[in-house]
């Protein structure tokens, strides 16, 4: 193998998985080609309305990421592209792409939509992919309002020009930017990359194949992805829940689970997300329209992830969502009303018929066809369900070296799991390509910053945006008016401010006229502010001496019916912008050196994986374990999926960790003290050799979770009652288990105090049961459960257990099993919900699945690290969806059982992800601090500690003088402290009080214009 390694990476698939992997890699010194089949990135998440378990807006979370990828200097997005071939070896691949023409030059298109409005098709006629067929689009369209790249695209399948060659091409004429180019052709080209990450995601199961539910025939039967669009405020009905048949608001809405999943006629595995998204959709529907009465029909309610259980509880208790444990055989459409008749069984066992106004099918996830094609082209193997083949111990590695896989392509999973895997894949790539880090990225060079001297010299650029602004607002008048404002030394109209020639012109004007502030009145700052800031920086100005006024989205586009008033408003907005600009100050950004080492707390599986990933990426890592041995826990863990050799893995992992030159293992050691902040922590370790102080840039918490020790069911009182782990130990080391009849009880002592699902015990019970039957197939094993949590491919294992004769009996949360002793015979009774009757079992052995509790030691750790625990004692992540392994405090990362319980592959991915996230910081060498951050005026601070209390990020500390001070590196710039400070001692850069107040004054009293 050649030694050459490329510092560039190809990420295939622009869903949330691909996006996260891209950002992680681009932030840690690699150049990324993000290859997307469709016309825009965003994937399925972009189509969602809200997301469980927090039910926050999908687009609010995703859109900033889209923008970030879109303008990242180390990322090139290649849309409408597919992979043709991959040659070479890890570190040195050549990837060949085929890119379909867009017929629109994205560097020119400004997404004004004029082409669309003037297309010969007066009405949108073709089903919109984004709205899953519920909405319509034209042959030329913008995929969705927040799309990145934000540009029109022509669909040659429906465009008349391509179909018949005879179209007046109104679109072409309408475009003022000359962005349309019907001569574009398909392009075949190759790129050199060191590694490849595949994230082609999933497809919803085709509900048409489940004929008994009438999807495609019954107007009011929708799929869940369609319902997401119906709920979305930017969807086809603007977020109103309306029936397709008659546009009326439905009252009774049914959700049917497992459509196409857990079904040998369709897909045998569980799709892992539909239980939760149905609950989410039911709540959101109810929030949209109180009259809606949602009913959910299900088999098992798989609420196994962090925060899931409480969402279901809220749905039940606060929103009145009705849950019915009964599957639906078929739907009948009532001919007159187009209502839908459903037969189900109620709690008493009677079959009932009920009419619903709307039915939503919770369709499962299947591997995308495009993904399967990709796998074929790249010769990577797929598993029996056609998802990417991975192994338990390397959950993000494909069967081809140097090619990694992530997200829903590896199996059904939700967004947090996808994000974790994406970070894990990025970490694995970073480790593989460590020597090439930084070889393909370039730091931009800027001229020395001029120090603004004296009074403001403001330049105002008023954009026409073709006719987008100028068609409504009298931009000339606005520019003329701007010239009259105090401090303005230059004002002009520009046709397209964002065009390359204008940017150059802007720099010239700044230099010529010695401008020291710039105001651009154009479109939203959310998209282009960074571009303009960069431009003025190139001209030697501090990038914070810039203000952007939105006269397009928030003026011309919403007031096109009142052009005069729109012009007036544009003037007011410019006046406010200029007022703020007069008060702008340059803000400095300092570089802070990063201590290039990591501290990993906890030497279990997670800790070891995290340490190895970091060490392989070239960073010194301290692995701290409080007990005498690494990965003790595993000795009790026998049965893991598909019987892989865990002990073998353990031995190998131990060897690698112990001999790795970059890892220092500290056993019998605890942390006594941690101080400092991201990039510069200083900790004292207390070990057998006494105390030692280490410097490190990041912390990874990888502490454990324990099996809960119960008090019920004769545990401790009778030797024939064991926990699953104890059984596991007995199965491997102890004398042969003799019992013939065995009862396993799930969710033991899962109650108000421990209300969450521990995620792993159902699978553990299944595996232990199979192991028991392997020893003696004539055993009788009864598993008493509330919900079988065998999500994703574990469903196959669950079926295998049933096929082997294990009998699973469901009971309600209200009627828990009873275990008692009758003359030395153990007797278990349980009320079988299906029989609606008590069942009696006389076992020789009772095994309790008691679930997982966090390490009590977490509390101390939480105090040391100043990071919060949740009510159950697990660590809280920064954002449950998008930053699942980050802590709210910068520089601290979470993995292992103590963050949330998980199976071995899940925990490995999480450990790699935490390491990858940590490596981003370490790889930088320097951290930028400052800019839009808060600072305390020491003169004014009265040490009331309000800011200390209110800062959500722990950025405030009390200095030697006893006064508040803010750690710029930690401050996120929210301004909460500034608003709360009673002494008005805190100011937030770029949003200082004086700046805000000046804007208010000038909005209403232009005549009072302060003579500054």
């Amino acid at each position: 193998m050649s030694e050459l390694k490329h510092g560039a990476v190809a990420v295939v698939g622009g869903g949330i998985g691909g996006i996260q992997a891209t950002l992680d890699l681009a932030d840690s010194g690699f150049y990324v080609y993000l290859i997307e089949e469709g016309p825009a990135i965003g994937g399925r998440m972009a189509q969602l309305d809200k997301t469980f378990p927090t039910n926050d807006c999908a687009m609010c979370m995703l859109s900033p990421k889209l923008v970030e990828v879109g303008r990242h200097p180390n990322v090139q997005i290649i849309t409408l592209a597919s992979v043709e071939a991959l040659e070479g070896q890890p570190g040195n691949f050549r990837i060949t792409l085929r890119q379909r023409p867009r017929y629109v030059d994205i560097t020119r298109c400004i997404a004004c939509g004029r082409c669309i409005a003037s297309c010969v098709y007066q009405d949108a006629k073709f089903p919109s992919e984004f709205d899953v067929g519920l909405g319509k689009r034209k042959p030329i369209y913008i995929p969705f309002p927040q799309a990145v790249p934000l540009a029109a695209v022509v669909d040659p399948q429906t465009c008349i020009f391509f179909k018949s060659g005879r179209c007046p091409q109104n679109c072409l004429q309408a475009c003022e930017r000359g962005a349309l180019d019907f001569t574009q052709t398909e392009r075949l080209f190759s790129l050199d990359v060191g590694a490849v990450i595949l994230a082609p995601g999933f497809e919803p199961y085709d509900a048409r194949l489940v004929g008994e539910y009438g999807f495609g025939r019954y107007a009011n039967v929708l799929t869940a992805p369609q319902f997401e669009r119906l709920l979305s405020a930017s969807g086809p009905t603007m977020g109103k829940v309306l029936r397709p048949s008659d546009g009326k608001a439905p009252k009774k809405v049914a959700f049917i689970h497992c459509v196409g999943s857990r079904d040998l006629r369709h897909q045998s595995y569980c799709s892992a997300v539909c239980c939760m998204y149905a609950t989410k959709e039911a709540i959101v529907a109810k929030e949209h329209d109180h009259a809606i009465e949602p009913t959910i029909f299900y088999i098992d309610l798989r609420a196994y992830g962090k925060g899931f259980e409480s969402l279901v509880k809220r749905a039940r208790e606060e929103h009145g969502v009705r849950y019915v444990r009964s599957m639906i055989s078929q739907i009948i459409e009532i001919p007159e009303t187009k209502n839908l008749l459903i037969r189900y069984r109620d709690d008493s066992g009677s079959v009932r018929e009920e009419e619903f106004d709307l039915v939503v099918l919770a369709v499962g996830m299947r591997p995308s066809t495009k993904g399967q094609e990709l796998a074929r082209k790249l010769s990577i193997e797929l598993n029996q369900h056609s998802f990417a083949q991975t192994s338990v111990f390397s959950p993000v590695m494909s069967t081809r070296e140097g090619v990694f896989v992530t997200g829903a392509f590896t199996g059904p999973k939700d967004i947090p799991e996808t994000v974790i895997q994406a970070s894990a894949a990025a970490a694995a790539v970073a480790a593989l390509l460590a020597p090439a880090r930084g070889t393909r990225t370039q730091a931009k060079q800027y001229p020395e910053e001029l120090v603004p001297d004296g009074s403001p010299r403001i330049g105002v650029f008023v954009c026409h945006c073709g006719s987008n602004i100028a068609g409504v607002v009298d931009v000339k008048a606005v520019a003329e008016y701007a010239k009259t404002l105090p401090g303005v030394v230059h004002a002009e109209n520009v046709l397209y401010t964002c065009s390359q020639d204008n940017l150059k012109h802007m720099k010239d004007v700044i230099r010529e006229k010695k401008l020291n502030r710039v105001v651009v009145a154009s479109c939203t700052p959310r998209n282009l502010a960074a571009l303009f800031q960069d431009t003025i920086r190139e001209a030697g100005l501090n990038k914070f001496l810039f203000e952007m006024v939105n006269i397009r989205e928030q003026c011309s586009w919403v007031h096109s019916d009142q052009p005069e008033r729109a012009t007036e408003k544009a003037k007011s907005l410019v006046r406010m912008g200029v007022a703020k600009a007069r008060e702008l100050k340059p803000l400095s950004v300092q570089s802070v050196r990063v201590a290039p080492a990591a501290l990993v707390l906890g030497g279990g599986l997670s800790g070891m994986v995290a340490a190895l990933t970091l060490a392989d990426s070239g960073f010194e890592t301290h692995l701290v374990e409080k007990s005498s041995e690494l990965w003790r826990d595993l000795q009790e863990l026998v049965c893991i999926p598909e019987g892989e050799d865990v002990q073998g893995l353990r031995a190998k992992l131990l060897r690698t960790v112990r001999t790795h030159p970059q890892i220092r293992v500290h056993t019998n050691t605890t942390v006594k003290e941690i101080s400092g902040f991201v990039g510069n922590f200083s900790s004292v370790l207390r070990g057998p050799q006494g105390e030692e102080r280490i410097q490190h840039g990041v912390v990874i918490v990888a502490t454990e979770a324990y099996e809960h020790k119960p008090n019920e069911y004769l545990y401790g009182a009778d030797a024939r009652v064991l926990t699953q782990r104890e059984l596991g130990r007995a199965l491997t080391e102890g004398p042969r288990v003799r019992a013939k009849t065995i009862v396993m009880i799930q969710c033991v002592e899962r109650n108000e105090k421990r209300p969450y699902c521990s995620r792993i015990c159902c699978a553990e019970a299944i595996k232990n049961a199979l192991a028991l039957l392997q020893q003696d197939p004539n055993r009788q094993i009864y598993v008493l459960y509330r919900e079988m949590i065998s999500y994703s491919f574990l469903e196959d294992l669950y079926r295998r257990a049933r096929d082997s004769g294990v009998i699973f009996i469901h009971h309600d949360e209200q009627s828990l099993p009873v275990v008692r002793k009758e003359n030395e015979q153990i007797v278990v009774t349980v009320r079988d919900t299906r029989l609606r009757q008590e069942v009696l079992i006389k076992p020789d052995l009772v095994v309790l699945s008691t679930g997982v509790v966090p390490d009590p030691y977490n509390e101390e750790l939480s105090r040391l690290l100043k990071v919060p625990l949740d009510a159950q004692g697990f660590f809280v992540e920064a954002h449950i969806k998008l930053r699942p392994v980050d802590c709210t405090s910068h520089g601290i990362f979470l993995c292992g059982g103590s963050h949330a319980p998980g199976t071995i592959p899940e925990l490995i991915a999480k450990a790699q992800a935490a390491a990858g996230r940590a490596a981003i910081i370490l790889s930088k060498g320097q951290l930028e601090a400052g800019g839009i951050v808060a600072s305390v005026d020491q003169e004014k601070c009265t040490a009331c500690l309000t800011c200390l209390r209110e800062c959500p990020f722990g950025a405030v500390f009390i200095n030697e003088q006893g006064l508040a001070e803010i750690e710029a590196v930690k401050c996120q710039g929210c301004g909460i402290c500034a608003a709360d400070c009673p002494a008005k001692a805190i100011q937030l850069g770029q949003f200082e009080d004086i700046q805000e107040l000046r804007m208010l004054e000038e909005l209403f009293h232009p005549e009072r214009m302060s003579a500054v």
Partner: protein
Amino acid sequence: MTNSEPKIVAFCCHYCAFAAADLAGVLRLKYPPNVHIIRLPCTGKLDTLYILKAFEAGADGVIVAGCLEGGCHFISGNLRAKKRVLAVKGLLARIGIAPERLEFFNLSSAQGDRFAQIAREMTERIKSLSSSVLTPLPEGKG
């Protein structure tokens, strides 16, 4: 005021309400031009002083719009802001300004439609109040 439309200031969080206002534009929704948006990094930055200043300077109404509950980019800024708005409402009542002139809204960045609706509703609401910002003190109302 010469203009018949009441003047309204909308303090919008960069991550949600401001983005929603952008979306309203992208969707070409219409709302009265009397609503002027001031962008904040988070409604948590909203100083009660700004609200008072807005009224003092001549605003007829003030909208404060932050993320949905639980959706704040900075964890709790919107909750803080809501508290402050409630407090200021109390204050307004005491100094004789109808507290209805100030309102806190939660919305997501996907709710362009809702933003336009809020702008319209607030305009209507304020029009229906007496034309002067200063209303008689509660006692005077009888």
